[in-house]
């Protein structure tokens, strides 16, 4: 009679992990409070470049940051992994911005990367198309378009067709040679792809949740529906 309830975000992250597990991806995790190096510089986002400003950052008094993305796992992962690797990193990240129905300061992210010899854009397309079909159904209409992120080159966004037009669901690209180098690898030999998506929006879309803040509201009317 009295079964409890798993948070909808937990349920969705499990689905994502499962989809990538079937393609050989292992789960890694990284700290939510990290150094500027792992969160920015190692990922080719130097402090003297405007690309820093894209993400509003929580700075701690000790000089560290609340990670602005789960990508801080990329360089960290290679401290105890050797290529070839296929890794995913589910987790929480933070943006220092005012919140409303559509914006949150505390966000969930799902990161993934694959590093090996001769990884190509074709591999990235293969893995992400497969995942998108698993997430949204085989008939989902989706498109990829070029988008610049400092940590990848070339970089891509993926949109799926929602009820009111194209909706961006993930950013991705071929890991920038500078990042590969910071992983301790030779970019002449190794290449890789990486992607990041925001499961909060996906959960909202799946259930028709209008206010992103409900996810962390602790409102039992909400939590006990799932």
């Amino acid at each position, binding site marked *: *009679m*009295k*079964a*409890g*309830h*798993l948070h909808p*975000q*937990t349920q969705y992250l*499990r689905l994502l992990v*499962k989809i990538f*597990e079937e393609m*050989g991806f292992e*789960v*890694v995790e990284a*700290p*939510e*409070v990290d150094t500027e190096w792992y969160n920015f510089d190692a990922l080719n986002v130097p402090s*003297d470049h*405007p*690309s820093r*400003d*894209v993400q*509003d950052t*929580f*700075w701690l*008094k*000790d000089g560290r940051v609340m990670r602005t993305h789960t990508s801080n796992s990329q360089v960290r992962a290679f401290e105890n992994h050797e290529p070839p690797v*296929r890794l995913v990193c589910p987790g929480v990240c933070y943006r*220092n911005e005012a919140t409303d129905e559509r914006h949150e*300061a*505390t966000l969930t992210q799902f990161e993934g990367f*694959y590093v090996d010899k*001769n990884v*190509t854009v*074709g*591999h990235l*397309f*293969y893995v992400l198309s497969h995942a998108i079909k698993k997430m949204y159904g085989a008939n989902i209409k989706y498109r*990829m*378009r*070029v*988008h610049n992120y*400092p940590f990848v*080159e*070339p970089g*891509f966004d993926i949109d799926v067709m929602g009820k009111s037009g194209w909706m961006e669901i993930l950013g991705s690209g*071929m890991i920038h*040679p500078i990042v590969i180098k910071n992983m301790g690898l030779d970019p002449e030999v190794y*290449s890789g792809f990486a992607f990041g998506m925001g499961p909060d929006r996906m959960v909202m879309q799946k*259930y*028709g*949740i209008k206010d992103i803040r*409900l996810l962390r509201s*602790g*409102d*039992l*009317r909400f*939590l006990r*529906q*799932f």
Partner: protein
Amino acid sequence: MKYLKSWLEDYVKIPCSNEELFEVITELGSEVEASTAFPEIDPKISVAEIIEIKKHPNADRLQLVKLKTAEGEIEVVCGASNIKVGQKVPFAPAGTMIEGEELKEAEIRGVKSAGMILSERELGLSQDHSGIKILPQEEKLGRPVAEVLAADVTFEVEVTPNRGDLLSHYGLAREIAAALNVPLKKPEVHLKESQPKASEKIAVEIATENCPLYLAKVIKGVKIGPSPQWLKERLTALGVSSINNVVDATNYVLFDVGHPLHAFDAKKLAGSKIVVKDLDEEVETTTLDGKARALIAGTTAICDKEKPVAIAGVMGLKNSEVDEGTSEVVLEAAVFNSKSIRCTAKSLELPTEASARFERGVDAGAVQAAVDKAAKLIQEIAGGEVLTGTVKAGKEPLERKVEIEYERILKLTGLKLSHSEIDQILTRLGFKVKNGEAIVPLWRHDIYVWQDLAEEVVRLVGLEKIKSESLLHLVQKPAQTDFYRRERIKDYLVRWGLTEAVNYPFLSEEDIKAAKICAKDLLEVSNPIQEENRYLRNSLIPGLLKTVAKNPSFDDIEIFEIGHVFSKKGEAVHLAIATSGKSSRQVEIIVRELTDKLNFPGKEFKITEIPRDELKRFKIKKPSACVAEIKLDEILDGLKLGDLALDVSGQKVAYRPVSKFPPVKRDLAFIVDKKITLGQIKEEILKISEKAVLVEPFDEFASDKFGEDKKNVAFHIWLESRERTLQDPEAEAEVEKIIKALLDKFGAKLR
């Protein structure tokens, strides 16, 4: 940045529809945001010309406006003050839909009005109702206004930080021309110059590494005044306010070709030499925005003989401002070091259109053209004579070369292209290709390695040409790491009736007071925008207690969270449980289960009954609450969790939005046929009652005393209203509705 389509068309003929254009730009990597979701404008609204304006005989503030329309002459009454004879305006005849209402022929103060001429607000374009929307002079009478406006749409593009070169109409036009492979009209300036030479008036010296190039032109005899209508319109369309003709001209050139310029009042400059240097000592001064600021030593500034007159690449200073009295202008066009400008704009908290472009890098090869263009424009709209020549210090930087690794580009992208096709693509984008090397155009500051060239090729070829390539299958299954263990623990807790909470990891000043946590033990955020994000939690318990407090309509609360906690010693993952209300001692049973069944080290759990005063501080209305917390990451290895495969068998949920207003809870018990499931009843309740947000069965048992094949079922039902706090009579009515529906549908009898 905002763009105006007609402005782009100064440089490139756009051969496609607006929608196609937006798609092209988006696919090139810069998303068109809010593609100016164009309002639906009634096709009856058409272009008319004002041929006469008379005063209204009975009202001082109204006018009678005679219009020439495609159908002939008519008269309307109008209160706007910005209209003039000869202007083209949008005319709406009676019967038109305006702001959702049908326009009727009307008599205003005794004069008949055959319709209306419209403001931007009445057209649905903006909130602007200060005057009538004036249309371009050359528009044909009778043309639907919807068509006129669609022909010249304004749209906003999110330009990524690497593409400063797109932050101008010419820059975006260049990109569009490359993508569509159509010709680009280069801006050409034929400047008429007069004697004497500019260099006889002014000299320029660079005394810093932060300014590789500085150009100055002098224009004498200008007359400051308002800008012409066309210029004002273009600036207004981008949301830039018009100041005066000279300042507008420099702003215009910024949005036109992307180069920031600055105009000084020459008479306000002391001496006859401009020096670009890093300040030796701090200087107190006032910037053009009227704010007093301290420029710290080391700030790169433009200085005259006595004082700084502009903060390099950021903003000019009040002491050399162009105003009504200005007759001679020194026009500056320079290249500044990106990092230094970024640093100055950041430390002064003064990001400007100029600093945004210098930070991203400007086109050092087009500085002369930009300053010539501005000089010519000033001459046109403010009169005056441009002195001969440009005073110049420093030099243009050298172009960078990147080796085109053809084979690696093709392999990485999987594209099937010949080397000459790659060369052609790069050439279209402005690269010069020579001996397998691409010479990077001076406006591109984001091309350093062959991978960057790969992105350029992909952008122009289009992603649909790339074939997907399957991954090799892995023999080994990926390892099940700690993530899997934690998920398994969640499964057990949920099975035992707990609900998973996911709370914010932040604590506010108020929270730490309520929890009596010492602020000095916590990690602190130095720049929170919201006060509640001041500290990082070192325990999950305050968050869970806040959750308990937030849910007074739930008698029974059993919740848990697994999440990161932070302290000066480091980051850890904790598990915490909170129980409150009827089952507040439940936490002890759960901890025992965790210990007995999963091998948790029970002693490591800190079980606490929350004292009354703390309940009060957390605003918990329930008489009791208990909590338990454990450092989870330290003990995961020793747990007996069985099969770690992820359980993804979530049930289908028809989610119901929750109201901002509090719910009321009602308990209902029924006698029903044994065959009817709890799920069927729950579904029916939700179907019949929109006010029911949550329906939970809490009892089900069969007994002969209910009759043969009958059972008792009981539900908690939370009812609420979207608009206000639900009142008791409303709740009762809703309950009656539910009872009746269940009787009709299942023959369920209320107990």
